[in-house]
């Protein structure tokens, strides 16, 4: 048991078990659906996962600091729509500029959330429940309920979702999926290797201690909301590229899927623990569920019922099962420490008995 406890942390048990669950789900669905193990299934899941994943990365940052951002769906809708309108009017805008515009708009909307939470001391659930409605309302009003149509968009954007960066056999690695993967890697590295990222964990883990050692809590919380907004903006751009036709309803309800992905992915709703990779696994789990239920011709509404149950089980397992696991690990530690030092230098790690 020792080597296991050395290399596998309780936190990783959570992610590993999700990975296992994903494999089981794939096997189960594979046995129920004909032609499941094909590149088509993979490609479909990959492109539907891309949007959720990008937003879930930002949400993870927010949740790590003991907050929540429910306005992401509306931000995605706003940026998708306004970027689309901009592009429809100026077809020859440089692609990079378009992406930047989407990210900038998202950041501004996120910053508004951040100001209210960090300096207004309004609980994030209240602020973002409010801005969820406000951003959507603004979108509907300013747009006059018009729709962005695919024909009005430049061809580079319309073709973007089918652009293959590379393929392994039949499995296409499309631009959108690779973009999501890149975001995941960047933020995974950022949260693991930057002092800034580690401070987010510190704030969520023990706010009192964080205050005592003088961490700039308000600025960091603000930053997470800006990043969540910026990534939602990016996801808005991806939404625009993927669907082409953007109504004012774009992204509605996305916040629920995203929160589900984050929580199912092992990010603790109380903050302080969880990883970006985990959130991506959560998004993949949800993507698989979504596509497979669709293929099974089971009402898509089953997905929501299952999502609700998954969130509940994820939160409950964090609260109940992880506690148990941790105390198991702790007991193993205790034995190690209680060992008197005069037995000679403590062996690096003992082999399993």
């Amino acid at each position, binding site marked *: 048991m020792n080597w296991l406890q050395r290399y596998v942390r309780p936190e990783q048990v959570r992610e590993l078990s999700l990975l296992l669950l994903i494999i089981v789900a794939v096997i189960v669905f594979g046995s129920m659906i004909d032609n499941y193990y094909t590149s088509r299934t993979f490609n479909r899941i990959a492109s539907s996962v891309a949007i959720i994943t990008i937003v879930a990365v930002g949400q993870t940052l927010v949740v790590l600091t003991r907050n*929540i951002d429910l306005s992401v769906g509306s931000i995605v809708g706003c940026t998708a729509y306004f970027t689309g309108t901009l592009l429809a009017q100026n077809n020859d805008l440089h692609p990079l500029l378009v992406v930047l515009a989407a990210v900038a708009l998202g950041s501004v909307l996120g910053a508004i959330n951040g100001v*209210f939470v960090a300096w*207004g*001391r*309004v*609980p994030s*659930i*209240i*602020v973002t*429940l*409010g*801005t*969820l*409605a*406000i951003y*959507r*309302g*603004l979108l*509907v*009003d300013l747009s006059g309920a018009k729709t962005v149509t695919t024909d009005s968009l430049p061809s580079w954007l319309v073709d973007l979702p089918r652009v293959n960066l590379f393929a392994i056999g039949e499995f296409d690695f499309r631009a959108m999926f690779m973009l999501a993967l890149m975001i995941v890697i960047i933020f995974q590295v950022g949260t693991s290797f930057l002092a800034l990222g580690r401070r987010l964990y510190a704030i969520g883990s023990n706010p009192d201690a964080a205050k005592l050692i003088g961490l700039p809590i308000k600025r960091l919380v603000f930053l997470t909301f800006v990043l969540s907004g910026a990534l939602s903006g990016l996801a808005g751009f991806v939404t625009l590229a993927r669907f082409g036709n953007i109504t004012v309803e774009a992204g509605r309800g996305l916040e*629920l899927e995203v*929160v*589900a992905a984050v*929580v199912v992915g092992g990010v603790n*709703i*109380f903050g302080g623990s969880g990883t970006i990779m985990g959130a991506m696994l959560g998004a993949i789990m949800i993507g698989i569920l979504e596509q497979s239920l669709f293929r099974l011709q089971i*009402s898509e*509404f*089953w*997905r*929501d*019922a*299952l*999502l*609700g*149950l998954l*969130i*509940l089980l994820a*939160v*409950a397992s964090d*609260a*109940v099962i992880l506690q148990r696991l941790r105390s198991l690990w702790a007991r193993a530690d205790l034995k190690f420490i209680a060992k008197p030092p005069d037995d000679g230098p403590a062996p690096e790690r003992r082999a399993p008995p």
Partner: protein
Amino acid sequence: MSALGRLKSWEGLLLALLVIIVAVNIEHSPYYLGVGNIVNLFQLSIEKIIVALIMTLVIINGEIDLSVASVMGLAACVLAWLFEMGTPMPLAIVGGLLAGLAAGLFNGFWVAYVGLPSLAVTLAGLIGYRGIARILVEDHPIGNFPEWFNLVGQQPLIGPVTVSIVIFALLFVIIAITLHSSALGRLVYVIGNNLQAARYSGIRVRLVKMTLFGASGTIAALAGILYAARLGSVRGDMAAGFELDIITIVLLGGVSIFGGSGNLAGVGLSILVILNLRNGMGLASITGNTQTSVIGALLILSVLVPNMAQTISNKWNGRET
């Protein structure tokens, strides 16, 4: 304690706001205060304000129930589903109410006995119950309910006052008495402002929380069924997003999001403010979406303003000493 002072001035603020809104509305439409319009005013949002009453208790108790709108939809869909299968309407109504009770108790179980945060549990409920509702009715609206059921939603009962409004008024009185005069109400406050002191006084905290979540589910179900009666048909997405208005009403009414303080008079005033505001915006031809934005802004302001007021008064006091 300054909280008390704040509360009083908060209600004063609401009253002033109400007077201004009503005055502006009368300016727009001279018949604004006519009985017909007032009944209409209530009738248009009756389901939300019914649920806001029980939400007041839940939030004072230090919890939150985000799943109410989904429970409303669930109850209506259970009713429609039972009806479509040939269940007599009264039984279908009972079925809908029981579904709401079950959903509420399910939430309560995870909060009270497992100790999970109500925010997470009821967010899961918001998604899950909506999913179940949609599984039951799929994509098509279900209607053709018996005539008497549809009348429950619209029929004037006393003068022009409809059944729903009577139910709201009764509930308002019952919940006001419960909150301010009964043992349960006392316990709701105590648990909300000091859960540990409640425990140390031998109060069965879990039971109180279960009761509240059960009641929240049941009343949301009742509101959902009234909504179905008013619309005459049931859809899977009915009442979606109502939690925003409901929570806004409660917090605007001066109930602290952290629990332990607030009263039903404030919530009553806040109901009037929101109803008149929505109606006034309608008169001024402001669209439903802008209205929702305004409600969202009110939600944030109702927590932000007292926070800022406290910060300023703290600074002021700090300077004095």
